């Protein structure tokens, strides 16, 4: 581009101006300017720095998961400095007296050294384990929040799938992690995995020999799990978390319905400075809390279990909590094993072990597509559902939680029997039925509760809130006075979307030609059932009529008395 050689003397460029106020990065000089000239920092920041995020406590669940993952990376790096992923046998000579002179693997020995002879080692180990528990727990509850509010709907289905992938890998990561110290408990877990791999039909024995490098336990499973735990799965988790967050930024965060919130906007506070301070601060809070947990709450005291030997075990062996449902399925599954000729098909291990995980994660992954097929809803959603306004989905969710919980409880059938003095066999049998019956009961109850809550909403909108004031009428009747609810609340309670009922269309038109986009009778029935518990919300006319009548309770107590509509006036004149 040609440059001017002279500047005219009356050019505005020569006028002296004083900046209005002091801008911290005026003219974008210094390091920021240096960076901008090289990577276009200003272009990147513009628009993104003031990106709006909505506020709600339930949005913090995913943040907890993210932060515990960062804590896991930080503490994990420290642990790798000391941990030796080796199954070579050594004799313990460290500080912990009770195990001195006992032969053990280097993995276990280095875990003991880390715990007793490295300053801060035990603390970091416990913080790491607590953060892992928190990571899976927060991710699970975050997933439930997404499910119950319908945040998985278009355009966020891909992010839902990424989330399911993250959760399933978190389980593998956690399992690989607690198998590493090679103490009696983790060795028992590996023994189970060996049995599980063996049970895979046709290829089981081959998979076992390849994974364990020969017969169980061998000398190579701990180094291999170490690779899985510190490289393979964390790498995948990191990549998926990156994609997960990038999609959140692209789609912008969902928001709960409320005054001023629409499908076309996002209402909240800017990233810089409010969310940087809030989210950044929250990271330090999560970190601080896990450090204090690692300080005060003992977790996985491996020195108490002793080194792994294949002929020892402790009663009440339990995996970490997130594996409890698989454990429960394994415990209560009936002993179904086929013996065909010279082959053995161990369904009682394969189905609950591998099938259970497949069923859970497969079902979760499929849900957004099943729901959108049933409702036929293909539009974008950015406003969250209040769970009561999607009663069938909510009830499926509660049934799913119940199903999971029943298996999880079954995973502790021995502890239940011991604690409550019950019969182990009776508890096991009861759980075999409970995993089928309890979810159905939970489904029915939740649908009822959702409907009641919807009626309650309608009642509040039409007749207001109970004031707690009992009024006696001159003719001796009693009624409770009702107060109109704020307009903000009335709007929130009536804003939700409604699905029209679908009529089945004829498969062929009047000329006998097949119609492609038809609604089959079955689909209409399924959809009808799905939205049956969505009650019709009050219309504007109904609200107006109800308000002009005054409050419903009056009519029952004193039908003759006309009531002034002053309450309604109050509701409209706000601020």
């Amino acid at each position, binding site marked *: 581009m040609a440059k001017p050689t002279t500047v005219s003397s009356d050019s505005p460029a020569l006028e002296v101006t004083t900046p209005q106020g002091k801008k911290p990065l005026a003219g974008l000089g210094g390091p920021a300017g240096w960076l901008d000239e090289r990577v276009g920092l200003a272009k990147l920041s513009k628009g993104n720095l003031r990106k709006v995020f909505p506020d709600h406590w339930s949005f913090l669940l995913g943040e907890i998961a993210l932060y515990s993952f960062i804590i896991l990376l930080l503490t994990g790096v420290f642990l790798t400095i000391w941990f030796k992923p080796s199954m070579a046998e050594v004799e313990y000579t460290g500080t912990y007296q009770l195990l001195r002179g006992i032969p053990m693997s280097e993995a276990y020995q280095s875990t003991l050294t880390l715990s007793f002879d490295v300053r801060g080692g035990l603390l970091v180990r416990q913080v790491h384990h607590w953060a892992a528990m928190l990571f899976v727990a927060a991710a699970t509850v975050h997933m439930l929040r997404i499910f119950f509010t319908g945040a998985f709907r278009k355009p966020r289905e891909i992010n839902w799938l990424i989330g399911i992938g993250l959760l399933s890998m978190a389980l593998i990561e956690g399992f690989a992690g607690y198998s590493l110290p090679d103490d009696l408990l983790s060795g028992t877990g590996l023994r189970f995995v060996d049995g599980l791999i063996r049970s895979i039909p046709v290829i089981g024995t081959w998979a076992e020999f390849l994974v364990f490098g020969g017969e169980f336990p061998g000398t190579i499973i701990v180094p291999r799990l170490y690779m899985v735990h510190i490289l393979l799965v964390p790498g995948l988790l990191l990549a998926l978390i990156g994609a997960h967050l990038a999609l959140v930024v692209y789609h912008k965060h969902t928001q709960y319905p409320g005054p001023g919130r629409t499908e076309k906007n996002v209402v909240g506070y800017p990233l810089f400075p409010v969310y940087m301070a809030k989210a950044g601060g929250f990271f330090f809070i999560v970190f601080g809390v896990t450090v204090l947990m690692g300080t005060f709450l003992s977790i996985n005291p491996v020195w108490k279990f002793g080194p792994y030997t294949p002929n020892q075990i402790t009663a009440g062996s339990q995996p970490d909590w997130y594996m409890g449902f698989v454990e429960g399925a394994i415990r209560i599954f009936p002993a179904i094993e086929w013996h065909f000729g010279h082959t053995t098909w161990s369904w009682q291990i394969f189905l609950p072990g591998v099938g259970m995980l497949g069923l859970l994660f497969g079902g979760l992954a499929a849900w957004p597509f099943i729901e959108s097929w049933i409702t036929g809803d293909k539009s974008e959603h950015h406003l969250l559902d209040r769970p009561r306004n999607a009663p069938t989905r909510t009830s499926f969710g509660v049934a799913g939680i119940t199903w999971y919980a029943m298996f999880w409880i079954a995973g502790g059938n021995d502890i239940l029997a011991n604690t409550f003095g019950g019969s182990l066999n009776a508890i096991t049998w009861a759980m075999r039925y409970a995993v089928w019956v309890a979810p159905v009961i939970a489904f029915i109850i939740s649908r009822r509760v959702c409907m009641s809550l919807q009626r309650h909403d309608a009642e509040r909108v039409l007749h207001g809130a109970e004031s707690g004031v009992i009024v006696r009428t001159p003719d001796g009747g009693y009624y409770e006075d009702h107060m109109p609810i704020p307009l903000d609340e009335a709007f929130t309670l009536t*804003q939700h979307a409604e699905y029209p009922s679908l009529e089945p*269309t004829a498969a062929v038109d009047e000329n006998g030609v097949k119609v492609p986009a038809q609604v089959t009778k079955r689909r209409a029935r399924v959809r009808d059932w799905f939205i049956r518990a969505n009650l019709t919300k009050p219309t504007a006319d109904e609200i107006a009529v109800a308000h002009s009548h005054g409050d419903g309770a009056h009519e029952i107590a004193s039908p003759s008395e006309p009531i002034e509509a002053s309450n309604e006036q109050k509701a409209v004149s706000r601020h």
Partner: protein
Amino acid sequence: MSQEVEVTRTHPVPDPGIPEHVERWADVDPEESRRAERQVAACFGAVPLLALGFVVVYFFVPRTWSVQFAGLNAQAQNFWLGLLGGVAILLVGIGAIQWARLIMGDHEISEERHDAGSDSDTREAALDEVHEGITQSDLPRRKLIGNTLKIALPSLALPALITLLDMGPWPGPGLRAATIEKTIWTEGVHLVTDVTYKRIKATDMVVGELVNAAPENIQDLNSDPAAKASATAKAAIIIVRMDPSTIKIPQSRKDWQVDGILCYSKICTHVGCPISLWEQQTHHLLCPCHQSTFDLGNSGVVVFGPAARSLPQLPITTDAQGFLVARSDFTVPVGPSYFERDSTHDYKDGDN
């Protein structure tokens, strides 16, 4: 294809709009505002002190000290490092959030959303570019290139996967017979107590007693810990003595026991946990992992739980001095099932 359905979102109550901003105490009261500032600064200001405390503890609190209060008995160093470090980190977070809550502007703002998908013009333009690229590559005319590439890329998976096959030895029939289908028990091997390796005299065992035991030749593997571990994982046994009149001994197993002393594999036939919970009165043996229960008074058949096969029994007898010895290896593979396992020879309830 399902029919698209318009979702209706009617508003019987009109949208009142974003609620008005409500001023906080710190926005209107200068004293309150200074107080908020002091709070945040106090949080941040305490952090360096705590960090310094952490360093002091690191260097000057000996490993041998302990902390005891309210039922807690912890190593002092661990306790103070965690307490000081944890509170320091926590204070950074609390300070930052107080700052955002009390001092930073809290005006809710609204931002427009845009459809996730592109508009039709962008789609057109992108398709044009794709079309131009395809045309330039000349792929539509030169199908052979496309088709060979389609085979070339997936075929690369083959070498990638094949390299994994050396992760372990291949369990063909020969290797299976030498590993998972065999233990170190053979004829004449003495049964010795677990851990102390003492031979067991039949007459020393009382009715109702259970002994965790091992083959005497397991000690030969002391120099090879890995071999010893996998041998132990299969050869571990339990010996029980029961009153012969209260148990069922099938004809075929009459000489597998010595006066009601029976010997079973300790490895569960479900997923391989060592079974250890002995109910003396019922002769039941319970696995602590998944609660499979075996009846040792009836050749180890399953009476409850997810295990599907009887516990393998080891044929035993006594030597000249009256010590228990094995008569052979187990007659069936011990431990959890695997696909190639021939399970026709396992003892089933009622066999003779």
